[in-house]
């Protein structure tokens, strides 16, 4: 069964081809949505089978995997295959569930877009297809290829409403910024290729593969590969593209910029674990980047007024958590042979994918209904949009980390892992503090958003209505999943045991924790209650500030709080810095280069041409037109030549 997993991306790809190339009449329902749902559902069904196999303990052996030879040059051969282990299965769940639901949801959300829907569905299908490809890749080049292709789809879909200058600009920005990360990724795998001679995971993650790379090169290579994750998963300092990417349709934000593509960076980091644990320095980099990003993005979310931007910053922040968890988890693996950080981060990955997709789709439902993103113009929607409001509340509670919703379990696990890593390096304790502050902020801004949107009085003139069934049903499914997915910790052998399978080779001695042990550990750990209390405090503060009447928010406009507020609204000026860097410094530099090219280099060329023409102009004056003068010159010339040949040359010895 597993060797047919390569068919998973084929379904959506066929749908993409059909939607892109079929004549207009035959596109059918919603300009191709039918094909889209069929393609996504086919992939979903096959993914489900694959995941079921993996849950039953079967993984694909490399020699059974079908292979496609892409390149052979000399001793370098690049072949593509599929790689299926627990981590792949996890991503397959995310992509198939969210992908299918988003396509169904799109039927309602994109309804009024008219003929351009065809482009939309084609691009979405292409995205789903290449995202599966990325997940199934069994070597770094294959992964990199799909990595770039998901970036392309992201570019195309952010710029879906290309006639809006902001959308066109955001699309470009997203592509270029992630490409900076991609460069590092590429450089990293090139380094590995030189030392190991292949990029297949099976060789690379083997004892022989990891030992072939010198330690300092391994640090460099893993840090560079992680650079790819920084770009794709929008980590500091390359995180500013993600909030801008909200220019795309909300479905795109939910699918690509919350649930799947931005997870690719986390997936890459998790996938590279056998390499990363060779290099504590890289792990430290991973953890610090994750922690800083989590906190920084959370602060930016505090003051955002655009509902999608709040969610975007929240996504960055949560991705930071996962990265932090992976970094800390690596230390745990090295020092204590303890997979908790890894399992926690991957658990957070799947939980976050579900509740963040839910939140985005709820936001989409709101935007679809009232036609604005600005939360200052919303308010009081709870009465008009019950389903959206309740499902979004579930999502907000999940991300805030209240039990028994999914976010509670995984976030707590991540923070616990970071705390434990603190035993081996004090930096992690610092990062833990940052994480816990982030947890408080998360609860606050999520409920600030919910209160501003759904509670209180209507603040502008709009006519809200509940969204159609195609939109609310996916919301309800996702809400149910968000409530339930946390319990994966306790089903069967438990999620942790399951995920351990993918880094099995890195752990010395197996120590199975039964689900009961996990539960006991969580509820006896005082840290659990610290984060719980902080989350509830965040919600209460948000309630006090944004829902209870009688609080004057104008204090945020003056003095020091005002300065902070403006800094937050301007995203710590990082975005502005990048703009200035790109448009003033870099573009200015290119203008200088252009002038240099035009006036100096081409000037020299034209100067030579002018010199030639000018000398010629001077020299032609010698042509007097007097034939006798010419003849005299000929005679003089002949005489000179004769003298030279008869006397000078013999004298010189020739």
């Amino acid at each position: 069964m597993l060797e047919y997993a390569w068919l998973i991306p084929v379904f959506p790809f066929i749908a993409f081809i059909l939607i892109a190339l079929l004549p207009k009449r035959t596109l059918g329902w919603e300009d191709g949505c039918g094909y889209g749902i069929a393609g996504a559902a086919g992939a979903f069904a096959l993914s489900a089978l694959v995941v079921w196999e993996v849950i039953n303990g079967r993984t694909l052996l490399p020699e059974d995997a079908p292979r496609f030879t892409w390149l052979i040059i000399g001793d370098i051969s690049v072949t593509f295959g599929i790689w299926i282990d627990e981590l792949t299965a996890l991503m397959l769940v995310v992509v198939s569930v969210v992908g299918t639901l988003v396509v169904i949801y799109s039927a309602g959300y994109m309804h009024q877009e008219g003929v351009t829907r065809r482009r939309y569905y084609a691009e979405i299908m292409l995205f789903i297809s290449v995202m599966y490809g990325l997940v199934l890749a069994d070597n770094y080049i294959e992964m990199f290829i799909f990595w770039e292709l998901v970036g392309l789809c992201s570019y195309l879909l952010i710029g879906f409403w290309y006639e809006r200058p902001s959308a066109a600009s955001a699309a470009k920005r997203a592509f270029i910024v992630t490409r900076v990360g991609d460069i590092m990724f590429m450089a990293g795998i090139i380094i590995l290729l030189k030392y190991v001679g292949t990029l297949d995971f099976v060789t690379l993650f083997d004892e022989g593969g990891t030992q072939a790379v010198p330690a300092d090169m391994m640090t460099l290579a893993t840090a560079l590969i992680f650079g790819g994750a920084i770009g794709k998963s929008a980590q500091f300092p390359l995180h500013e593209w993600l909030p801008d990417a909200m220019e795309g349709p909300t479905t795109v934000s939910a699918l690509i910029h919350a649930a799947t593509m931005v997870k690719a960076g986390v997936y890459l980091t998790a996938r590279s674990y056998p390499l990363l644990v060779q290099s504590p320095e890289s792990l430290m980099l991973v953890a610090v980047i994750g922690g800083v990003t989590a906190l920084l993005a959370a602060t930016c979310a505090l003051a955002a007024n655009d509902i999608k931007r709040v969610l975007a910053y929240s996504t960055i922040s949560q991705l930071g958590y996962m990265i932090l968890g992976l970094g800390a988890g690596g230390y745990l693996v090295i020092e204590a042979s303890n997979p908790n950080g890894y399992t926690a981060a991957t658990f957070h990955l799947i939980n976050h994918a579900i509740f963040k997709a839910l939140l985005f789709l709820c936001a989409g439902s709101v935007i679809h209904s009232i036609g604005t993103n600005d939360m200052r113009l919303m308010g009081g929607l709870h009465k008009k949009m019950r389903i959206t409001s309740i499902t979004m509340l579930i999502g907000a509670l999940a991300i805030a980390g209240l039990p028994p919703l999914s976010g509670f379990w995984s976030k707590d696990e991540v923070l616990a892992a970071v705390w434990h890593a603190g035993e081996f390096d004090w930096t992690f304790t610092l990062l833990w503090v940052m994480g816990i502050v982030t947890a408080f902020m998360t609860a606050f801004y999520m409920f600030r958003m919910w209160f501003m949107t759904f509670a209180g009085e209507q603040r502008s003139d709009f006519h809200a209505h509940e969204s159609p069934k195609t939109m609310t049903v996916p919301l309800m499914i996702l809400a149910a999943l968000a409530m339930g997915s946390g319990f994966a910790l306790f089903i069967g052998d438990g999620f942790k045991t399951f995920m351990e399978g993918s880094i099995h080779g890195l752990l010395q001695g197996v120590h199975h924790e039964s689900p009961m042990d996990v539960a006991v550990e969580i509820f006896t750990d005082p840290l659990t209650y610290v984060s719980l209390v902080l989350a509830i405090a965040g919600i209460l503060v948000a309630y006090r500030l944004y829902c209870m009447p009688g609080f004057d928010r104008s204090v945020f406009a003056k003095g020091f709080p005002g300065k902070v507020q403006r800094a937050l609204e301007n995203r710590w000026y990082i975005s502005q810095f990048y703009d200035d860097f790109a448009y003033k410094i870099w573009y200015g530099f290119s203008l200088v280069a252009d002038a240099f090219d035009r006036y100096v280099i081409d000037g020299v060329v034209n100067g030579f041409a002018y010199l030639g023409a000018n000398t010629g102009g001077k020299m032609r004056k010698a042509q007097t037109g007097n034939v006798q003068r010419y003849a005299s010159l000929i005679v003089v010339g002949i005489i000179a030549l004769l003298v030279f040949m008869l006397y000078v040359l013999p004298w010189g010895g020739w």
Partner: protein
Amino acid sequence: MLEGVPIISIIILMPLIGALITFGLGRYGRYARYVALAFSLVALVLSALVAFVFVVEPDSSSPGYHDGGGFFDYQFYEEHTWIEALGIRYIVGLDGISLPLFVLTTLLSTLSIVFSWDTKLRPKEYFGLMLVLEVGVLGVFTTLDYFVFYVFWEVVLIPMYFMIGVWGGPNKDYAAIKFFIYTHIASLALLIAIMAMYFQAGANSFGMEDIWRAGQTEFARMFQIGVFAAAFFGFGVKLPMVPFHTWLPDAHVEAPTAGSVLLAGLLLKMGGYGIIRVAIPTLPLGADALQLVMAVIAIASILYGAMLCLAQKDLKKLVAYSSISHMGFVLLGYATFTQLGVTAGVFQMFAHGLVTAVLFMMCGVVQHHCGTRIIQSLGGLSKKMPSAATMLTIGFLASLGLPGLVSFAAEFMVFVSMYETWGLWLLLPILSVAITAGYYLWALQRSMFGPLTKEIDTSDVHDIDWFEGVPVVVLIALIAIFGVFPLLLFQYIDPAAVTVINLLGLPGGG
């Protein structure tokens, strides 16, 4: 199949006969395009047949096989004496390096003829010159005799000069003369190199193989360095390499679209072909001594070209500068002196030929439909010409090295070989990947996206015409096919690249 058939000569003759007929059409000039298309199509089909029959790992039973005895092994080899006293022979043949370029030549010529279907100004001469150009380029890529090589090399200049000078833009006189003189000076350097090799070898033969064989004992190190420098200059100007590149943007901006396609798609490849066929294998010690110079120039071309693109206001000039940047990859691949790098360099030539043809054709479409190529005056054209915008986007994406499209494999392999040879200096050229994305997407954003421009009259802007769309679609299909299956081409190039590397390792005498 094709045993004993002088197939290459036939293919070269096809456009030549076509050109003669086209010139001689007299008052039936309006049929010139049909004649030109017919003959170039025949050449294309025959060359595709040659590619089909070409054997990846040839042995003596392969059609027209010629064992180079250490030098390149050719297939479809033909040899006739022309001027015996001077050792000038007409020798043609194909190997893994020339085959892709050979097919590329017939392909791009045919597509350019289709693309210029509605040329109104002196069609006889226009299509005739295109065919003459095809003859010249085909000759350069197949001939194995320096003298004939040089003749073909010069033949190429003349039609291109007229194409720019007659069918060009407003500043065509300046561009045409600059193109001609600049590249001609480079040709002189090449001529000096050829003559020096001929006389120093003393084999009374202009044959590449004979000169190489004699050169192993006759060419001293200093001689090789000097001659290599001259030949490298001669080929490098065509490539073009920084700082000898300024003829290129001027020529492109003024040239008609088909002229630009052929100029960037084929003429630039002649430089890259010459370096790998002539300069490096015959003068290994010179190449070795100047390896670093080549690498520095390559990296400078890549980065400097990319930076210049960012500043361009004219869409076509942007594409022209991007050619400088991308041909830098070719040189960089060669300069690594690795099998991987040489293979990737040749593949990059092929890839760039396809991609840049799409880009220049799309610039032509924009010019043709909107009347201007100035990026600031464009904007929002996606609404008016969605197919054209899609094709331009695909072209840009292919050019910026998107995986799955043809340039990626080449660029990636160049980077790998660069790392093998120079380690972390890799980080310099790899920067260009981001810059390239930057200038292309920025140009795309300003010209195709955003609100519809008000600076030009867009009321009668319509989508792409069939004769413009067909060549572009064909090219895009090839770009995708070779992007997904680069091995289709790599397998041909690889053995020839091995030969190059072996030749570099041979003792060069002196």
